[in-house]
């Protein structure tokens, strides 16, 4: 059963997905080894997650109290911390395996760029050049001084090379106990900051009054300052990124920033169709699905995929080793599964509450998985999608069509397929508690209700 997902030859979306019926129950004989209880993925790294959250706000300090407030706004609320979790678990699941692991381990004890924890806050340029005053890190930052004078700095001492002994052993295995490097902890914070910055901007674009049950930042501070706050968080995240000292990781994370906005722009594209009332031809539907999944990748999965990959790179995994690819494939499939479930919940949550006019996605004019599946079964959905549910009554009619169709079930089945795929690629890693936690995570993502 595990191998089945890899052998899909036809497009997934056109199969009513008969597998759905067999996967839904946990006691299915097809899922492997359910006698072993999977750990709670969050519990495995709970102390680290808590540390990350406390430390993160420290990085955002600024002289202006208002900016301080905006930048830390979303971090003071409880959040799932799914993205940092992924970074931490993949670090534990692969540290020790990479060819350069001995070097990374040695570096983590050295007072040098990309080394021990204290050095991750050490500026690469002099503090009086950067002038990025942070009251929480007073000894390494300054305010601009109008009496700043020209000076010729000292040539820095050359850092000693690592001892040759760390290169002597070729054996690689997972560290015992499982470990996380300071750079990987910092990466988890950076990823969370990038995510928060995108939320700040998204809430302005979507004009949402609420986020996680309380007032959104644009509602509290105004649109302009919410956007600027997001830029500030992004700037500080990028500074921290530079100080990790790994150009490959810098490139990966920077590309996520571009992905996020380009996904948003892609979402604005119109669905094209020649004859919008006909049953969508396979090409039209394929385009609609491609756009949807591509948008999902760019807005959600990319951060998870590249974040996980970056964690593995920081652990010393090199080009040609499979671990980076495992991380990327896991993150990508999990991320898409996560978003598909999100889209399903947007429809289901409506059902529980009486009289609520419609899920947020329809209100925003977005055709997600359930709507696209419904379109296949009910061609009259086509014009609604094309006009982004803009006319009076569209939202209700669309919701109705989705309810009548198998849209929600099929989307959930697709999510399960992606989650299974994520779990499957983990087989390329040696067994460990962290790997088991990552497997458990794939189930959690599917089973969640919020």
């Amino acid at each position, binding site marked *: 059963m595990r191998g089945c997902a890899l052998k899909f030859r036809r497009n997934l979306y056109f199969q009513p997905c008969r597998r759905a019926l067999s996967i839904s129950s946990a006691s299915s004989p097809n899922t492997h080894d359910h006698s072993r209880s999977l750990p709670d993925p969050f519990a495995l790294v709970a102390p680290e997650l808590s540390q990350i959250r406390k430390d993160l706000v420290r990085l955002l300090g600024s002289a202006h109290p208002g900016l301080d407030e905006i930048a830390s706004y979303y971090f003071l609320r409880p959040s799932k911390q799914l993205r940092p979790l992924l970074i931490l678990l993949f670090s534990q699941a692969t540290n020790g395996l990479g060819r350069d692991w001995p070097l990374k381990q040695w570096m983590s004890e050295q007072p040098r760029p990309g080394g021990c924890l204290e050095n991750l806050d050490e500026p690469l340029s002099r503090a009086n050049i950067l002038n990025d005053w942070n009251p929480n890190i007073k000894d390494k930052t300054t305010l601009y001084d109008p009496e700043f004078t020209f000076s010729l700095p000292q040539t820095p001492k050359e850092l000693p090379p690592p001892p040759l002994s760390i290169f002597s052993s070729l054996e690689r295995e997972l560290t015992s106990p499982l470990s996380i490097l300071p750079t990987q902890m910092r990466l988890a914070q950076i990823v969370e900051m990038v995510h928060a910055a995108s939320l700040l901007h998204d809430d302005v674009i979507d004009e949402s009054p609420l986020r996680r049950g309380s007032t959104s930042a644009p509602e509290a501070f105004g*649109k302009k*300052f919410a956007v600027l706050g997001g830029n500030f968080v992004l700037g500080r995240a990028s500074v921290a990124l530079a100080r990790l000292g790994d150009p490959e990781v810098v490139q990966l994370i*920077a*590309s996520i920033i571009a992905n996020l906005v380009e996904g948003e722009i892609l979402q604005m*594209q119109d669905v094209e169709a020649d004859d919008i009332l006909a049953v969508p031809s396979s090409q039209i539907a394929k385009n609609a699905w491609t756009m949807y999944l591509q948008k999902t990748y760019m807005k959600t999965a990319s951060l998870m995929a590249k974040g996980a990959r970056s964690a593995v790179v920081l652990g010393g995994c090199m080009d040609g080793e499979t671990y980076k690819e495992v991380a990327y494939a896991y993150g990508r499939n999990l991320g898409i599964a996560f978003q598909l479930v999100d889209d399903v919940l947007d429809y289901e949550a409506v059902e529980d509450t009486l009289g609520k006019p419609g899920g947020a996605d329809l209100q925003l004019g977005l055709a997600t998985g359930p709507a696209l599946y419904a379109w296949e079964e009910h061609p009259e959905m086509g014009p609604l999608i094309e006009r982004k549910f803009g006319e009076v009554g569209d939202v209700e009619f669309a919701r109705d069509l989705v309810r009548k169709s198998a849209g929600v079930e099929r989307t959930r089945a697709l999510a399960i397929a992606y989650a299974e795929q994520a779990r499957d690629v983990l087989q390329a890693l040696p067994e460990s508690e962290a790997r088991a936690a990552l497997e458990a995570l794939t189930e959690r993502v599917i089973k969640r209700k919020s």
Partner: protein
Amino acid sequence: MRAWPSLSVCKHRHLQFAQRRQHSVLSHNLKAYVSPRPTAVLNTAELLPASPRDPYVLVASEIDQLRSNLLNLLGSAHPTLHQLAQHYFVHPSKQLRPLVVLLLSRATNGLGSEWEQKKWIAECERVSGRDEELDQPLTRPGVLNDNNPNMPEHTTSFQSLFALQTPKISPEHPPLPFPYETNSVSRLVNPPMILPAQIRLAQLMEMIHVASSLHDHIADSSDGSGNKLAVLGGDFLLGRASTALSRLGDDEVVELVATVIANIVEGTIWKASNVGTRPVESPVSPSQGWNRYFNRIYLGSASLLAKAGRAAVILGGSKEGEIWKEVAYMYGLHVGFANQLMKDVNSYEEDASSFDALTAPLIYAWEEHSFLKPIIQRQFSEEGDVEQARHAVHTCSGLERTRMLAFKHAEKAREVLHFLPDSDTKDALEELTIRTVEART
């Protein structure tokens, strides 16, 4: 070590201030210049020598290329973003930032001890063709423009679940051929050249600038779609700039530019009156007013030019302990200050009815007239406040004194240039300092 050259460039100037003789690059003390009122209004024509050369000429083709790249990028994205391209086309920017980056590059390439390595890497990249990716238009449906140099490409992989990819080994640059000439003698490369990385830096600094302007124009009262465009447009540019920045491959440069992004936000926030729930008090004295003001314009304007200049020279191979990146930083810093001071003078003259912030002309006036304090503290909210403030500025020659401060900064920038070997680019940099403080006709 160079001897202090005479200020020959200034031979046509007849400043009435004795302080001029006390200039030296080593005593950049702004506060010393924030002082006496001129006894007569200076005629700026007497101050500026005849200008022989347009600073844009030496880098005209690069500047044009950057401008059309930016237009293409904006235009190729979503049709809605196309409107932004139109706006940018109709209101072209002076491109001051790319100009500074390109000129400083051209004036210093060859001097840094790692110049040879940088030139070699540029040649390798040109051959491998990796450079053009960053100008590609926006991701189109079905085509995933997600090129990461270290990752295998997957453009059509949304038709099925994502399978585990075969790892790819990305090619490393061949090493610099040995033996190469170690740059023990600092000499400008001849003929002068600019590295692709430096052009890329110029482009991304302009993108950051345009993105900040877009985000600056988001308003709460206006319509949702206008705001959406401004947010997305700015974010799009910031995203591309971040990607380009990461590809430059230099952590020090990434750190510098990242602090610029944070600084710009801080500069804007300091200018606003009410942000968040914890209020910031208005300054209580002119001295505090000056501190606040210089801090703000550093963060909002000068920081970008200073750090962009420094980054350009780092990309040309200047190492820590060498003078070149310090020169670049100081030049950008002073030109940035001069530019912003002139802007504050000009916006004062143009818009007679509003006062949006405490700027230099008014702070000069405040030094002489303490009655301005309550007016400033209540942010010109009462009837007659603006008129009183304007009158005070006029009687204290606040505008002229601000101009003098701008000239001082331009002069400082010229002095720092003396550390560089002579070249036509250096002349262009000098010319730029003069043009920055020219009165608008």
